[in-house]
């Protein structure tokens, strides 16, 4: 059997594929963060809590209303998005003229409150949420057993990421959005309702987090801390990709998933820190991030 540094190549392929799957979560979450930062200049620390909310809404839909996974996939992002719109209107909109730091503190506080409320209500052990029947089971590939659900995660995540990128870069709506970030006063003078745009953008950004939460519910434990665990990594992803760079966040998300996957084979103890080491290195060499433009 062929080996690379003592690891069979077959095992290596398996690990790379798993890395790609984890990268899907990083990609969707960091995409939402990048959109929000790019258009609203808000460092949205509540993103992890809203991801967790997505998973909980999925669980609630099933438990209280009997609505399964596919319903949740559509409804949960909607619920989280509406919640985001309310947050933006009531609180965040008041901070646009202030330094980034205020937005960061506000959203960080919100994250702690949301997590605390869920923890108080549901405890930390988490709630069961099963993989939908259509996607249970898996394929025996030559190098690994690939659960169908994980394959679906990659497909769903890629589709959402590409669609979002296309909307922002290739449509008139996206052009308005981009213009509104560059020069809000001028765009408003053309009769575009800029505050509404910003609200909807925030709503969409956090709906992506909710979507990721639903994707995560069947494979991770649905518990109030699930967002806190992942959000720090996702922030590192966004910083490495370049704050506000949309395509950068997606590519970096997938790439860092791969790097993490490889670390889990060669030196598992470091797998929770490798992303931060890369972040430090990137910041030293290219402070604006890999895909970021220096202002």
């Amino acid at each position, binding site marked *: 059997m062929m080996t690379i540094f003592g690891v*069979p190549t077959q*095992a290596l392929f*398996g*690990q790379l594929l*798993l*890395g790609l*799957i*984890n990268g899907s979560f990083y990609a969707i979450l960091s995409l939402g963060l990048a959109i929000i930062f790019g258009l609203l200049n808000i460092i949205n620390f509540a993103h992890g809590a809203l991801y967790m909310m997505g998973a909980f809404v999925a669980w609630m839909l099933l438990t209280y209303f009997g609505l399964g996974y596919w319903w949740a996939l559509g409804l949960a992002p909607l619920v989280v998005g509406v919640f985001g719109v309310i947050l933006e209107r009531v609180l965040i909109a008041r901070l646009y003229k202030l330094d980034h730091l205020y937005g960061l503190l506000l959203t960080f506080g919100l994250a702690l409150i949301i997590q*605390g409320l869920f*923890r108080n209500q549901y*405890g*930390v*052990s*988490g*709630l*069961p949420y*099963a*993989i939908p029947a259509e996607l249970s*089971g*898996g394929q025996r590939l030559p190098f*690994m*057993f690939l*659960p169908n*659900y*994980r394959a679906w995660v990659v497909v769903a995540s890629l589709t959402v990421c590409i669609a979002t990128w296309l909307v922002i870069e290739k449509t008139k709506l996206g052009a308005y959005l981009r213009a509104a970030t560059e020069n809000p006063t001028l765009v408003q003078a053309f009769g575009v309702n800029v505050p509404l745009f910003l609200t909807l953008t925030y709503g969409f950004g956090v709906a992506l987090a909710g979507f990721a939460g639903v994707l995560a519910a069947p*494979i*991770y*434990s649905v*518990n109030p*801390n*699930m967002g806190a*665990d*992942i959000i720090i990594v996702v922030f590192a992803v966004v910083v490495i990709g370049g704050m506000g760079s949309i395509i950068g966040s997606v590519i970096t998300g997938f790439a860092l998933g791969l790097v993490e*996957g490889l670390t*889990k*084979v060669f030196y*598992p*103890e*470091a*797998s*929770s*820190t490798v992303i931060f080491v890369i972040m430090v290195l990137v910041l030293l060499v290219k402070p604006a991030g890999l895909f970021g433009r220096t202002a």
Partner: protein
Amino acid sequence: MNGRFPLAALAGALLAGAALIAPASAQTAVKIGVLGDRSGAYSDISGEGSVVAARLALEDFKPEQHGLKVEIVSADHQNKPDVGAAIARQWYDRDSVDMITDGVTSSVALAISQVTKEKNKVFIDTGAGTADLTGPQCSPNTIHWVYDTVALANGTGGAMVKRGGNTWFFLTADYVFGQTLQRDTTKVIDKNGGKVVGSVKTPFPTADFSSFLLQAQGSGAKVIGLANAGADTINSIKQAGEFGITEGGQSLAGLLVFSSDVHSLGTKVAQGLVLTEPFYWDLNDQTRAFSDRFSKQMKGSKPTSNHAGVYSDVLHYLKAVAELKSTTDGAATVAKMKAIPTDDPLFGKGVVRADGRKIHDMYLFEVKKPAESKGEWDLYKKLETIPGDQVFRPLGEGGCPLVKG
């Protein structure tokens, strides 16, 4: 008249105050600190439930009748040894806390144990796993109450090898607890003629175990030993199901699983899992009665073995203090607790050994199939009772300096 009235009132107040103080000073004041994880990965095992359990122990002990005046305080150590040690120090120095209990998370427990020894107070650990607390790091001020890594290894590890699981691969949480659990289980496997074919250290906490599970799958070992706890265990079991580990003929050994973990997984995912615990709410009438009282204050949750341990150790501690009528010398209190045999409704009769190890029976449980389970908390069926003198490490083998000979 105007001038005299306040004076008289003052005198009256002083008298009344003296009258209030007099009977109080005849009672011994005792302060118990419940120091656990109130917000993190272990807060369902520990957390508010431990405080409720301590309060239930007070209700049953009726301290006033024994000349004691007991107060309970609580804090969150966030699973960080430095935070735990700092709170313990502050409690002992400033808030006159006499005894700390719970102490979930091994690394934190070892830190609290150090501080307790330095201040000559009492630490009764229920939640931590590391058997080093009564081994090389044992202390005349520390008692280890509920379970330890050796007992888990002997229980689950021994049972799995006897059932034919003679090759093992470990997923080990990368900190004191995981490492000691792997070490102690490896000894049991070797002793019973099995073999460890590999292991992987996973950062604590980890959300995604797929990559580690794949390595375990690739190893071809018959048993995958989960030397982890809490959310790590839940995630690894959930994802093992997804990757078809058990369908592929490998079995999972959850080395430390609490009933709250199984409740969270649900019987559909966790069915067939073999595990070792010293307590389960549905063991007998006494455990059921206690669990009912506990549930009423905890939104319907059933107590874990850690909660039961807090109840049981607070009772025993108060018995010792009531006899000594003093809490000043922590080592003397612990010596007294070792001298009187333990007896309570949840763990039955037992002893506290010279090295600080509390001895009681442990049980080997199997998680029920969904069809067998009659309610959301109807989780285990008992396979075997393992007597306390067999499941815990023999007194002479731990390397504890307190054990003579």
